[in-house]
């Protein structure tokens, strides 16, 4: 295939009814039979090609952006090494499931920090969609002929894959520090982390499509990440929160992030927390639906931000 076979367009394959000499504007009413070549059929292979490419791109971008990788790792490690060390004395934990013995505070917060990584990751990728360089690439994505729900799913899967990468590097670092879970727990936590990663990614996607005011990271930190993180069981068990304030305890209970944390916590110790899994899945479905509405061209964000 030399240069000569470069894709030539319309005329040679267009139906003969098209007037070759059609003057540009207001071309004469050619019987509009059929028109240009039919669009190629996009089967399962095409869908998978897109999925592979989107995930690979996201992973590659993440790995090449050293600063982002570093930040993603340092943040939870600071919590683990500094915050937890300071707080282990202040916070007495009793035995709460899934733990069967007293655990140190470091051990307690590792699942919460893993979920925090995913929370940050979900918010960061959505934020980059809202207001920076990614705008162009999102347009590129949305002008693909593949179904939009599939494209957004791919984007979600890609973000989730990156968050898994981050979480496992963090878990390895924590293990080196001596904060370990049972070995099989690391494998059993994978499906749980996939679900939570998707849920938190969908939350970010939904936010990016519906809330245009959150244009900078400080805003997201204040109004999304902090409340989500602190009003959950990531740093303290539910009963502690309920003890100090029934209302806050109630909010913690309703927070989907709490269920994500508990799901990961139980899975890490080889146990299944069906309630947490159910609530996380439900939250995923809700955020997903919201994101789909948000990215629907007839409604939602693009309508307001199309310029």
């Amino acid at each position, binding site marked *: 295939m030399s240069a000569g076979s470069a894709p030539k367009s319309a005329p040679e394959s267009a139906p003969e009814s098209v007037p070759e000499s059609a003057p540009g504007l207001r071309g004469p009413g050619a019987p509009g039979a059929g028109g240009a*070549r039919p669009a190629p059929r996009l089967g399962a292979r095409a869908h998978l090609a897109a999925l592979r490419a989107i995930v690979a791109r996201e992973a590659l971008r993440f790995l090449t952006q050293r600063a982002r990788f570093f930040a993603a790792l340092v943040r939870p490690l600071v919590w683990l090494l500094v915050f937890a060390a300071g707080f282990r004395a202040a916070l007495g934990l009793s035995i709460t499931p899934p733990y069967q013995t007293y655990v140190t505070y470091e051990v307690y917060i590792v699942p919460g920090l893993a979920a925090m990584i995913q929370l940050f990751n979900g918010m960061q990728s959505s934020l980059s969609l809202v207001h920076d360089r990614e705008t*162009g690439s999102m347009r590129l994505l949305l002008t693909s002929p593949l179904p939009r729900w599939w494209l957004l799913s791919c984007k979600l899967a890609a973000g989730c894959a990156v968050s898994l990468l981050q979480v496992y590097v963090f878990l390895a670092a924590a293990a080196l520090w001596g904060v370990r879970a049972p070995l099989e727990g690391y494998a059993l936590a994978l499906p749980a982390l996939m679900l939570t990663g998707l849920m938190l990614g969908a939350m970010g996607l939904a936010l990016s499509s519906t809330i245009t005011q959150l244009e900078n990271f400080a805003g997201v930190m204040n109004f999304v990440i902090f409340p989500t993180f602190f009003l959950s069981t990531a740093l303290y068990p539910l009963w502690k929160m309920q003890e100090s304030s029934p209302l806050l305890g109630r909010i913690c209970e309703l927070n989907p992030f709490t269920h994500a944390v508990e799901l990961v916590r139980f899975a890490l110790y080889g146990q299944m927390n069906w309630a947490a899994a159910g609530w996380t899945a439900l939250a995923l479905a809700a955020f997903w639906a919201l994101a789909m509405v948000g990215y629907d061209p007839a409604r939602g964000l693009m309508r307001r931000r199309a310029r």
Partner: protein
Amino acid sequence: MGAGEGALAAGLAGGLSVQGVSFAYGAREALRDVGFSVAPGRFCALLGPNGAGKSTLFALLTGLATPARGRIVAAGADLGRAPRAALARMGVVFQQPAIDLDLSVRRNMRYFAALHGLSGREADRRIDAALERLGMRERAHEKARALNGGHRRRMEIARALVHDPSLLLLDEPTAGLDARARAALVAHVHDLAEDGVCVLWATHLTDEVRASDDVVILHRGRVAAAGRADEICAGRPLAETFAALAPAEEAA
């Protein structure tokens, strides 16, 4: 066939037909009853000062937003009824570059090809052909960051051709380029039109338009004039005609 079908013929034949399109951001009207068509193989310049509604129109043409009223038939399909069929035969170059600077030209192209369901050797063959068409073949392995502005744009145009579209939409592709790169880009895209691609080229610079091109002048969301450039101008320079029909506004 009714009159409506006649006006949509260009779009059905692989070009572009826009009919009675209106769009508003809340209460602010952005486009009002916009209608024009571009036949296959024509280069049409969409001329308008900033704020005339060019980018809004592009969002509608690429399915990123849906018009409140009117019909768009692009690359053989009705954008309202079969948006994905239209997108499959449409190439788009957005005003904002969408390039991964840390990836090579080829990788950038492969990513896009995959978004159109193309992979493996078929994708590579088309990528080579598209790069060749824009005279960029030998740069396939360079990192996008190493390219200058003009070449980055050319890569984006080559990328928009990978899936062999019949319609190519470019939203102010020369923004930020120097005069030489601009002229080269304009020449390249005119060549594409001569090869049979239907081109809609948004700009506010009249020197990018040739006398034989089609022109649609957009002003305050309405079509102020449409036709062949030399016919619209009737002997006057296009710049003059454009300034008269669509005077630039203060900080629109």
